[in-house]
């Protein structure tokens, strides 16, 4: 990109504009992502530099009348969204345009224009460790990307890690989502409880079978109890919480 600087300076000199105050040869695209339980929201600020505005403006002001109409603004925003990829836990998401706003063409020509796009996407139910991936390929040859994530307001969402490539066109957000049924700890707890309950049920069945065999043997061989078959059950039940023993080993 550095070889574009002399060209940018030349353009500025030809415009008679000061080289210092303007964004020059980059198209800054700053995105701030906000993750909630059931949706992801993103706010984009797109600021074309004065030397690249001639590339960006025709794609916004498509009829070249120097005015950005509502439909031009809308279709440009849709085009930007089309250059984005968004996925959660490996499943692609479809960004939905919420709003678009932009300054006039004159300001863009001076490197002072800004396009603001807000979009969102619904998140499928999920829990535990989640991974959101955001990729921006819009005007990649001239882009300077920035991506960040707002600290979640929802305390059940904890950001675990943010990873980006060098130019921030690729952004990976790892977070943990807890709370309610989707709490990973409560899910693990549920599994543990189910396993324990299964184990206890199995042991009870075996114990009952043992008792009935002993009873039948007793009826066949009076005075010879079949105690050893009961012992392993008791040993295992000894490791279970007393409440469990009470409720299962009646």
């Amino acid at each position, binding site marked *: 990109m550095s070889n574009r*600087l002399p060209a940018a*300076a030349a353009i500025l000199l030809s415009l008679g504009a*000061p*080289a*210092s*105050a*303007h*964004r*020059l040869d*980059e198209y*800054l695209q*700053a995105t*701030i992502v906000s993750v909630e339980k059931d949706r992801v929201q993103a706010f984009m*600020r797109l600021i074309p530099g004065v030397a690249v505005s001639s590339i960006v403006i025709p794609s916004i002001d498509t009829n070249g009348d120097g005015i950005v109409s509502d439909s031009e603004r809308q279709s440009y925003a849709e085009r930007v969204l089309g250059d984005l990829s968004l996925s959660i836990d490996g499943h692609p998401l479809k960004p939905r345009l919420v709003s678009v706003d932009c300054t006039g063409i004159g300001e863009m020509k*001076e490197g*002072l224009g800004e396009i603001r796009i807000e979009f969102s996407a619904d998140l499928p139910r999920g829990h535990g460790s989640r991974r959101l991936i955001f990729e921006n390929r819009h005007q990649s040859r001239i882009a*300077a*990307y*920035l991506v*960040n*994530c*707002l*600290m979640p307001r929802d305390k059940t969402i904890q*950001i675990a890690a*943010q990873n*980006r*490539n*060098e*130019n*921030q066109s690729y952004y990976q957000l790892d977070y943990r989502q807890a709370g309610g049924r989707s709490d990973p700890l409560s899910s693990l707890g549920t599994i543990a409880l189910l396993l324990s309950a299964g184990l206890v049920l199995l042991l009870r069945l075996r114990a009952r079978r043992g008792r009935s065999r002993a009873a039948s043997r007793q009826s066949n061989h009076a005075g010879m109890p079949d105690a050893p078959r009961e012992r392993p059950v008791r040993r295992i039940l000894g490791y279970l919480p007393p409440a469990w023993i009470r409720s299962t080993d009646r």
Partner: protein
Amino acid sequence: MRFLSTRTGRGICALASICVSLSPAIGQTATARIVTAANAFLSTLDEKQRQTVEFAFGDEKQRQRWSNLPTGFVPRGGISLKEMNATQRAAALALVSSALSQRGFEKVRQIMESDEVNKTSEGNNPIFGKDLYYISMLGKPSEKDPWMLQFGGHHLALNVTIVGEQGVLTPTLTGAQPALYTIGGKTVRPLGQESDKAIALLNALDEKQRKQAILSYRLADLVLGPGQDGKTIQPEGLKASGMNERQRAMLVDLISEWAGIIHESAAAARMAEIQAGLDETWFAWSGPTSVAPGKNITAYYRIQGPKLVIEYAPQRLGGDPSMHIHTMYRDPTNDYGRRLIAK
């Protein structure tokens, strides 16, 4: 025959007030001093100018009307130094000075001078210059009720909210281009300490700490610059809880370059608040890890704590990034003193 015209008389009165406001008033609180200076400044203005300077305290548009850009591109509210006579200008600067520490005011002066150098180097371009800085007030200067003093222009946005004896400087933007210049044979770097202290801290980290602090991606600009009020991003980098005492002291000293712009008593309260959250404060660096002697770093860095965001972002605009710097100082929990006002 009148010995003095009304205008001259007013000027003398204003100067007397300025002298009073500038003299170290024994027993006078910081807020009382600022209020005195504010009233002294207002008394130098005619009715029309006064109306231009004064805004309602609830004027959110004016509160957020600040930028890093030259005033020709993003018009500021209030009145510029250019539109003032010498007495008014002296009173305006006395007011700004009363709200800041000595080193804070010196920094402001150097930033304004830098824009004057920029003007000269750009062939006397009228969009730059040290007289294109605007002063405005939201609410009436008061020792009890909240009010706000704004002063800014290209590369400067001071937003000082005063609530009783408390003073809040966030959000404030400082910047400079050229960020190194010579005046009267003296080399000046308005944001030189912000650069030198940061690279010193980075160099004081061990390899493991540096790995945590240095981000693997490029940051082209401020993330929470103008227009980004009320946002708190996820912090990154190295946590101060993972630093030793010397490194933590260096970090605090670096933070003081922003927190210490405001007058001493407000700065002391702010530093105490920052120290209280130091364990949860992060230091992140992106870009070159070395610097040419006597020059500014060309790397971006961010310091983020529970009540603090500082960003230092060299700009490629205009060529050498070490010569063009934007910085941002915020308290996401108390920008514009909102936490204090809500109480």
